């Protein structure tokens, strides 16, 4: 790791003042330090957010919850407030990495982490995401972390475990910048490789995610998060599925199906959601929804198996929610 300067601002304001193209905020550091160590990013200054303890709170907010961006993954995992509809977020948190990393990593960091594409993560293989002029991954057989829903120059998927359930919960991200704060829907926070394959989100270099707002949900709404990964512990998702709905008179309502690690951004599957909406849950329907969710998939040469995985996660997810909602 090259020498790098380290700032510890006492307030959000001074943290924002320090941010620029050559600096990077650091909270848990579990992804950033790896990137620096591998030599795939180059920043001159790290701006520690450690002093901004206000940003770690999880609290009631407008009938829902507000989660500070510095809340750790394990804060979510063990929070007594993530009950009912919000349980799925705790379940997703439990699926992140290992206990050590969950104690260190934060919500904001999880949403802003960089892709796991093996070629992106190797300093010796130039690629679009590192500012190069080709993609070595798309022609390689190592495509577990690549999209099955197309791409644009870069095909790397976003690895966040928290983003898909946040999208299912209609969460909004609060972003602070030089000219004040703005709110962005969790789904539109992620941009994919267009227009710039070097970044994955709408976050500007001088901005910070400060909190996540979970709107109120119908009390009977339940969601589940399922993650396909090589090993039971420690791994990033090959693909994940967040499925949720409530039962109204035995029929599914407020259906959300979101795939993670399947496309450059976490994606909702509106056709599959519509197929379930207003219907009674059944194995058959769950499988139809799974097929519909992947109907538009365009796998690369070596990741077609992710379609099978995603279908299994969705169909089983629907049945798990059905039993959780008492169907």
């Amino acid at each position, binding site marked *: 790791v090259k020498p790098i300067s380290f700032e510890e601002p006492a307030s959000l304001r001074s943290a924002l003042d320090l941010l620029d193209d050559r600096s990077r905020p650091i909270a848990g550091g579990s992804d950033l330090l790896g990137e620096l160590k591998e030599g795939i990013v180059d920043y001159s200054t790290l701006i520690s957010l450690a002093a901004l303890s206000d940003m770690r709170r999880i609290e009631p907010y407008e009938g829902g919850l507000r989660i500070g961006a510095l809340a750790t993954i394990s804060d979510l995992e063990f929070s007594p407030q993530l009950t009912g509809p919000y349980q799925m977020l705790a379940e997703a948190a439990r699926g992140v990495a290992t206990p050590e990393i969950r104690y260190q990593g934060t919500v904001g960091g999880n949403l802003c982490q960089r892709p796991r594409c093996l070629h992106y993560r*190797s300093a010796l293989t130039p690629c679009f995401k590192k500012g190069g002029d080709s993609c070595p991954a798309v*022609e*390689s057989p190592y495509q577990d972390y690549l999209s099955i829903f197309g791409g644009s120059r870069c095909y790397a998927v976003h690895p966040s475990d928290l983003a898909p359930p946040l999208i299912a919960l209609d969460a909004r991200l609060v972003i602070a910048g030089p000219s004040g704060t703005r709110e962005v829907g969790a789904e539109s926070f992620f941009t994919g490789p267009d227009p710039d394959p070097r970044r994955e989100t709408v976050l500007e270099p001088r901005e910070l995610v400060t909190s996540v707002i979970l709107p109120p949900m119908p009390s009977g709404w339940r969601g589940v998060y399922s993650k396909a990964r090589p090993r039971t512990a420690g791994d990033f998702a090959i693909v994940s599925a967040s499925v949720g709905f409530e039962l109204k008179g035995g029929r599914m309502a407020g259906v959300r199906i979101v795939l993670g690690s399947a496309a450059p951004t976490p994606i909702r599957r509106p056709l599959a959601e519509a197929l379930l909406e207003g219907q009674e849950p059944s194995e058959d329907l769950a499988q139809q929804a799974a097929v519909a969710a992947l109907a538009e998939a365009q796998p690369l040469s070596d990741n077609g198996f992710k379609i*099978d995985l995603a279908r*299994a996660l969705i169909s089983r997810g629907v049945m798990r929610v059905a039993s959780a909602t008492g169907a």
Partner: protein
Amino acid sequence: MTQTETLIGTSVGRIRLADRVTGRAEYTADLKRPGMLYGRVLRSPHAHARIARIDASRALALPGVRAIVTYEDVSDARIDADLAPLDTIVRFVGDEVAAVAADSESIAEDALALIDVDYEVMTPVFEAADALKPDAPQLHPNGNLVGGSALEVERGSVREGLAASDRVFEGRFHTQMHGPVGMETRAALAEWDGDSVTVWKTSRAVHAVDRQTLARVLGIPADNVRVICTAMGGGFGNKDEGRLASLTAMLARKAGRPVRIEYSRVEEFIAGRNRQETDIDLQIGVAADGRPLAIDMEATMNAGAYVASGMGVTRRIGQGALYLYTCENARFKGMTAYTNRPAGGSFRGLGAPLGHFALEVVIDQIAHELGIDPLDYRLAHHVTPAGQPGVRKTPLHELAPDQPVEGGIPFSSNALRECILAGAERIGWRERRQATGSATGEVRRGIGIALGNYKGGGNVNAQAEVRISKDGRARVAIGNVDVGQGSETVLAQIAAETLGSPLAAIEMVMADTETTPPAHVTAGSATTMTSGTAVKQAAEEALRQLKERSAGTGDWVGLTAGLADDAVGTAAITSGSPDAIINSFTAHFAEVEVDTLTGRIRVVRYVAAHDSGRIINPRMAENQVSGGVLQFLGIAMREEMLIDKRSGVTLNPNFLEHKSTSIVDFPPVEVIFCGDADPLGPYGAKALGEPPVVPVFAAISNAFANATGVWLHEVPFTPARVLAALQRGRA
């Protein structure tokens, strides 16, 4: 002297275990010498290139940099036939280019970036099949086929056997390149005193390899080289020497100060020595009743840039094909190809787990096709204590080969049948196993079997010295390295048992060329059989002297107190016998659960039955078996080194993406020991270190087939491969 309790077959605690688990044990990277410098290695960013020029002047000008070595500092002496200490050709991404010694590791690291190297990039080749084509880029002067020709051995005539066969079954198999992932990374520390050098290092052969190699490379007599291995953090047959110790010693000589180099985890992956990617074709011809008439195996191994262990790894691929089933005609052909990948080397089991994978899957398929229970098929045709049919070719007075080709020589002992029967009973084969392919539903269970035979440590030279002193201590000097397998404890048990002394009286001295007699490589699961025999004989001689010369009487304390001078027994032996082949045997049984929607295989139960003769230390032996099984379940399921096909860059040199299995995903392993004392082994012991890894891939593939009706032919068994196999099965 009375002996109240036998130590053989007793689970005494591992010697120095408390030191290891409390952090007191000193591994090479823990050692420090006064004035010691820290070294780092500059590695090639190209898979294949010629170094036109190296200019290290900017690096040398960096304050704190004390010495740099490049190809200009080396003589013609070589580490191996294909490996110079440093070279003007680099052959893989990560190949050594230069080394720096500095006051700190970070200064040394900074200096690497200041070494200017002009590379003339050449075309690389990464696949074995491509490397063996006539127009392929050549890595070494004698071509890409290691040794210049295929290794080919045959018993009888497979051509005739296949012609006489009623049916011929065949299969094509693939196994991956992966890292051995010892917990300790490689390290070396060198300190000169005049023209003599002491080198502390991770090692599996301080005498047989390191001392000789260093003497040659450094241009000094072997007597001037002392090599010590203080403790090993995982050997797994893998810590073959590359360039590390030579570069460390060269730097120390140039700097005039001690130098230590410790590999990072990334370096351990790319510049250690890896298991080679291998392709195997197998044909088995059978008579109408299923009896094997010909077994014909051909393998191609991708050796990477250098061959660290010669052709031994390739040779072992054929061990099962040549000897596991009674068959008059058997042939093995192995080709080993240089490519521009990180170098391969020896790793636990050598080629045997790869060859057994192919053999035991095709045997399972034969039984299935013929409508015979695969357990019954194996009971009918496994090799018996009589060995293979045919005429002995080894002259009668010479030691029998322990990886034999010829027939006509019996085994010293062979309890394979007992292993099969005991394992089958434990897993409930007759009661619980369904017909292959009959399971239905999304998640299906299946039970599979696979057998193994393994060379047992014959034909190896070993020496030992046992010195009894009047204070009641017995010092056992043996030059081997305890690579983690526990040989220090087992050899101490053998010594104490032979002497009739308490175990606490034994002081083990190992892995130091100055204080121990010459020893073989810790390899081939040979230590208990060979060094154990040497220790036993040396102890017998020392005991004879003790009894003869002691003025004392009574028990061990009384006898030794009566000694005027030390009683010293030495032994130099060659293990083996002209009359018998020494092999260990194993039968493994796996029960798996296959999720047919996600392609995930979960091993729910694993039974490993082993004939390793008499077991000296049951608890350590059980750990050895379960450790080996778990290690290879991880390799079976996921572990792999991924090489970028365009650049040759290793894309996953880390624990996150190499996917070594963690403990939560392992099943319990039930271990059964079968068979009696081997007549040739010390106290009846045979080899155990490697046999547990031999049948694992096939046991999983066969259990998978019992669950789903299709066999897996490619390791690792990833979800992508599982789902593709299920798709083929449905088609």
